[in-house]
């Protein structure tokens, strides 16, 4: 175990959240819960990235008063990445939700296992 676990508590939380989301995505049979898991996972990564960009005592990377010194602002890159990530997450959520709607309309259940079982019967 490395030295920085407690210092990196933000990342640690992100990791835990990521795993929670991951587990949800993997194990939940309910599609909506799966999607929630997905969003948790994504959020965890944003948290992680935000923690990465943070430098103690510095301001958000918007030039104020014309100061363009490195020491003044936090790292802007992770913020940019998070922005992109959010868009991706939104898109994916939308897609997943619409898939869920279709499946629900067709099979009247959100349980993926049941859908699979119905499909097996339908297939023949």
């Amino acid at each position, binding site marked *: 175990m490395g030295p920085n676990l407690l210092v*990196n508590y933000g990342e640690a939380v992100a990791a835990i959240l990521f795993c929670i989301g991951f587990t949800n995505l993997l194990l939940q049979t309910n599609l909506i819960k799966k999607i929630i898991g997905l969003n948790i996972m994504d959020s965890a990564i944003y948290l992680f990235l935000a923690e*990465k960009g943070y430098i103690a005592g510095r301001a958000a990377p*918007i030039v104020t008063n014309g100061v363009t*010194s490195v020491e003044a*602002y936090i790292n802007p890159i992770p*913020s940019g990445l998070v922005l992109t990530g959010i868009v991706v997450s*939104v898109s*994916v959520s939308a897609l997943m939700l619409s898939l869920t709607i279709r499946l629900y309309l067709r099979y009247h259940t959100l349980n993926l296992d049941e859908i699979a079982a119905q499909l097996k019967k339908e297939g023949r």
Partner: protein
Amino acid sequence: MSKKKSAEEYHKTFAFHFFRWLSGGKDPYLGNVEMRPQKEYEADPEMLLRQEKEHDAILDKVYDTKHNALLKLFHSLYEITSILFCLFLMALLLVTISYLPATGAADKPVNNEVAGRYIEKGLEETGAVNIVAGMILDYRAFDTLGESHVLFVATITVLILLRLDKNKKGEVNPLTKEMNPNDRIYEPKNDAILQLVATFLVPIIIIFGIYIILNGHLGPGGGFSGGAVIGAGLILYLNAFGFQKTERFFTEKTYKWICFFSLSFYCLAKSYSFYTGANHLHSIIPNGTPGAILSGGLILPLNIAVGLVVACTMYAFYAMFRKGGF
């Protein structure tokens, strides 16, 4: 003399066989030369069919989640392994994190010359006060271009899934059958409170969104967030007044063309910028005065384009989910 065995019994004894061989009687293996034909293998088609049916029946049984103990066991095993895997992953990540550079420190590898240049030269090179906006729309514009297309392709998939189309021949779309036909009866909801609040709020929301978009390069915000706000406003409007009202100014066509023009503009503008950049040509787009509203080169127009797309997309998502059309 021991007890005499009966003939049958005797015929089974080893002594009998031995003596038979010894005296040149029957040879044990010679009889094999005289043979009957073997049976030809022939599969009965009916049997094959029956086998197939049985196979299906077995499958049925196997996939009968409620009664198949083995399947249940498998499921629980699967769950346990998954949980173990996730725990393992968590532990792994935590260990990893414990080795990562400390949060908040200024001397992390992350804070290198890349970030440095963005901060120091960003204003000068991109003309954007908001360094993040400058970064994503100029330094790393290709990512952002991709990102907007992620949104675009997601809308396309949602359209594929949920849009109700009328066939040329007028056949009923299979999706229509599935959709609950009653959903649209309740349009509009005619909720007086909602309508009243919406009358007040929607313009404010939309104006706020426009503000965010226009100030994307100057302060926090940008095309995406602004677009989302506008989209939210539109959705509120829709909820308050129903589809009939919105259809007056926002149809699929509107959506299509707005998206098309915005994205085309985005693509072309960035292509120009990439092309000039890569070929070391001078870009004709001025950066303007930092801090002014008309500054930051392409950032403002791009923000507007993105904002339009996002707003429309958000609304489109909602409309699709709601009734499969605009």
